[in-house]
């Protein structure tokens, strides 16, 4: 037999349980949703994009060093907002890729780091082609990381840069799993999602990002695609450029010159 007291207790528990998420709902007018998106986005005067010329990259890793210092990413922790990958394709068709410490100290050995402490020696004669590919957040037009955030802690700023609100992030890690490019990680100190934000504090003061400033060879460029006179825009309009993992439909905004099919 269920007592009156028990019944009341159970009822209160279930009802509150159901009501708490209900209370969090906001009634949104569908008209507002439709009106919100495309129109306002197109009005923006700035849309930051990035251009990487892989032919120019020498793999020195000065960009990674500068990024970690500028953005206060603990220097010795094995996480970084930007990194450089080395690809070595041998004549017999094998593809090797590595990025020891994200190339913070460059590549100071010929041996490829296969992970788990294994290294691969590759003879000079066996190399068909080899090159470096710097990577960073693609600041996608359709960022999958933002779509999955349950609390509105990561979002797209009006100028297209995807930011993380450190105060709001609950550290669930959905965005880290959702990013097809693997650019997100947990900040070792703040324990919230962390990612490249095109040095938001620098580009908004008219400076270049730290990685662009550090690169001696001009392999990295940042620009505003809404400005037809911008050097990056000019290159994007006239030269052949590619993006990473186009098939995911995220519309990445980091463009590459000299991308190869081996690059993942």
């Amino acid at each position, binding site marked *: 037999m269920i007592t009156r007291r028990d019944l009341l207790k159970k009822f209160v528990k279930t*009802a509150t349980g159901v009501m708490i998420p209900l209370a969090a709902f906001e009634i949104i007018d569908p008209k507002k949703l439709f009106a919100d998106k495309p129109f306002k986005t197109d009005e923006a005067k700035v849309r930051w994009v990035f251009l990487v010329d892989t032919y120019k990259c020498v*793999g020195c890793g000065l960009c990674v060093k500068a990024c970690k210092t500028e953005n206060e990413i603990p220097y010795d922790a094995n996480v970084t907002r930007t990194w450089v990958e080395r690809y070595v394709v041998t004549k017999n068709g094998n593809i090797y890729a590595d990025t020891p410490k994200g190339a913070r100290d460059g590549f100071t050995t010929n041996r490829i780091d296969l992970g788990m402490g294994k290294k691969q020696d590759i003879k000079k004669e066996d190399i068909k082609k080899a090159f470096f590919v710097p990577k960073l957040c693609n600041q996608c037009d359709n960022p999958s990381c933002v779509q999955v955030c349950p609390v509105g802690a990561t*979002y797209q700023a009006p100028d297209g840069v995807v930011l993380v609100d450190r105060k709001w992030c609950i550290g669930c890690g959905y965005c880290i799993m959702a990013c097809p490019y693997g650019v997100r990680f947990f900040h070792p100190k703040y324990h919230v999602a962390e990612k490249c934000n095109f040095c938001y504090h620098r580009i908004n*003061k008219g400076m270049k990002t730290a990685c662009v400033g550090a690169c001696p060879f001009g392999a990295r460029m940042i620009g505003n695609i809404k400005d037809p006179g911008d050097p990056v825009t000019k290159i994007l309009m006239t030269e052949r450029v590619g993006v990473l993992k186009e098939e995911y439909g995220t519309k990445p905004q980091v463009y590459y010159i000299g991308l190869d099919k081996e690059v993942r």
Partner: protein
Amino acid sequence: MKSHVFRPLLVVIGLVVIVLIARFFYVPSDFGSHEKGYMYGWHRKGNEDEWKAFKVKYQFNNEYCKDCHSDKYETLARSPHAVINCENCHGPAMEHPSDPAKLKIDKSREQCLRCHYPLPYPTSGRANIRGVDPEKHNPGVECSMCHNPHKPNLRGMK
């Protein structure tokens, strides 16, 4: 109207009201869907300014160093290292020269080997930089013992 249904219902309504009030105070007023719409722009607007206010550390402008270190500036500008920014070897200098000692000089061999380790990669920019094998090329001593980092030209070495 005394019914066993109404009393728990009142309790439930009370709880909902409490949650709503708590939410009202907890969620800042600038939280909502902004320029990028509900799908991508649902956030706390103030966070944009928080990021903009993040501290800048690197100048990345050699012109800034020109006035006080004109000798270094001039020599570097005419050397094969002209493309390298001072701060790549000397660290962030936003606060320099108010505290000159804080600027460290990276004399490590690793700093030079980033670019000068011999990697035989003809299809990359690395092919244009001469490499030296660190195990054979005067191991154990700093490169700047023999080479002037600001003027590495082999002819007229320091």
